């Protein structure tokens, strides 16, 4: 207790203005000062007024921020007009992506499962080119290779592309893995995928390097194109993959599922199995693969989703 006793409590309401009445900290003269009921009431009222006022300003600011973000959020008319998620969301997604890419290591493998846990995954690919797809005449088209001398045009496609049959892809050592296919919706199914490592494929059909030297995957990826773009034959579905994820040892150009040839409704004759990404990046029925430094269009990123979508 202070030296004050009850007889010394000022009866007059005009106590001097004390700065720092609501200042932070543990010590305050008011903690120990004995006050009359009225004085205590007067002081707490004054403090309440101030605090509630700053509280109201805080609530108003938060409300304004909320309203502003809501006007710009994915799915809003403004976002649709912009054709993208508004910048606060897109920036934060991209910042998250940068951090994720900086932390990403090839040496952290995707967890694998016993082969007998594999089953047919849920099919969720609603975006298809057309129903009259003929797997027998299909060829994989490549753009942006170092050596484009074998590029040809076709009746339907007048861009020169290197065109490979499925046998050229099956010529690589077959790799198989039993991993989860994780949908961005939340479910995850264990599947056994079989195919060619994209990494091996890239070394056989390499992109040009910036330095002009041969590709050296052990010494960083700065010398390679930044992205791989994959598009369905009719162009209805398309994804962009960062190079580090593309050359991850568990990224496959996949032609077998659970030990059987890949069925049509899971993307025959060739799909991407990339377990370091959500299902949306595991594009079915690949038509064209392009190496590029320009960030490729991505079907779901255009609809408000995270571009990276990686694990």
């Amino acid at each position: 207790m202070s030296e004050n006793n009850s007889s010394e409590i000022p009866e007059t309401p005009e106590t001097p203005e004390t700065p720092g009445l609501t200042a932070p900290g543990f010590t305050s003269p008011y903690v120990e000062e004995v006050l009359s009921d009225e004085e205590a009431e007067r002081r707490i009222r004054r403090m309440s007024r101030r605090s509630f006022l700053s509280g109201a300003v805080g609530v108003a600011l938060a409300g304004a921020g909320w309203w502003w973000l809501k006007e710009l959020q994915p799915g809003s008319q403004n976002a649709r007009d912009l054709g993208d998620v508004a910048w606060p969301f897109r920036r934060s997604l991209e910042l998250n992506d940068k951090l994720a890419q900086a932390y990403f290591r090839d040496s952290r493998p995707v967890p694998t499962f016993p082969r007998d846990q594999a089953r047919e995954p849920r099919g969720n690919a609603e975006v298809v080119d057309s129903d009259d797809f003929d797997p027998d005449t299909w060829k994989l088209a490549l753009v942006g290779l170092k050596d484009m001398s074998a590029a040809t045009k076709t009746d339907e496609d007048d861009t020169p592309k290197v065109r490979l049959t499925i046998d050229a892809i099956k010529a690589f050592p077959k790799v198989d893995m039993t991993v989860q296919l994780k949908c961005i919706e939340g479910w995850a199914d264990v599947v056994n995928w079989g195919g060619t490592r994209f990494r091996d494929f890239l070394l056989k059909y390499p992109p040009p390097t910036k330095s002009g030297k041969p590709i050296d995957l052990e010494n960083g990826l700065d010398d390679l194109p930044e992205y791989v773009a994959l598009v369905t034959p009719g162009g209805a579905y398309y994804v962009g993959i960062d190079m580090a994820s593309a050359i991850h040892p568990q990224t496959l150009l996949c032609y077998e599922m659970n030990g059987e040839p890949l069925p049509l409704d899971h993307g025959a004759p060739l799909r991407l199995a990339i377990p370091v990404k959500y299902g949306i990046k595991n594009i079915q029925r690949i038509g064209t693969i392009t190496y590029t430094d320009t960030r490729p269009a991505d079907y779901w990123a255009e609809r408000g989703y995270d571009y990276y979508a990686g694990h």
Partner: protein
Amino acid sequence: MKRLEKKHPLAIRWFHWINFPVLAIMIWSGLLIYWSNDVFRIGWGSHTLFHLFPDKFYHPGPEEKPLYTLDHKLAMGMAWHFLFMWAFFLNGLLYVLYTAISGEWRYLVPNRNTLKEAFQVLLHDLHLSKYHPPRRKFNGAQQIAYTSVILMGIGSLATGIAIYKPVQFAWVTALLGGYQWARWFHFWLTMGYVGFFGIHILQVLRAGWNNFRAMITGYEVVAAEEKPF
């Protein structure tokens, strides 16, 4: 005769009131994400007591003009969730650092008397006993609640990163029992916040205006003869 007693430091009041809307946004955006694969339920075997959540929960009211809609907003939910996770993390981290450095943790972290006192408070609040332990800044029940909710926050961050980056943080996911278990824990921790919130509001209402006002002004009006905190 009264005293004005400092109860909550300014920093803690800010952390508390910032956390309120931020956690609300995390729960709401989490629901937008959860909707697209809402698998959790209360039940046993094939018997389901309650499915989380019934369709009506996502769009209550008439079909053509629902009161609100939480369905078909996965991209929106993810965009909000992965922006405000930073606010949730940083605010929580600063709170923990502040309580650790300022010494405020002494009021909050349970000690050997906590369990007994919490039990006494529980019996009192359920009207099963007239005895209430002596007034302190935070009683045993509060110490357990406010410390648990911080541990839950850490749990949400850990389970969150186990879902968000299950390959780069595969060891966290594995510790939680795999990807689906990480989702399970993440979801039920969120339900835990909802439960915490409900009890918290009830207790604040019961404790009254003087107690609530202290979370805003920092001061509580107490009888002059009350022992300081």
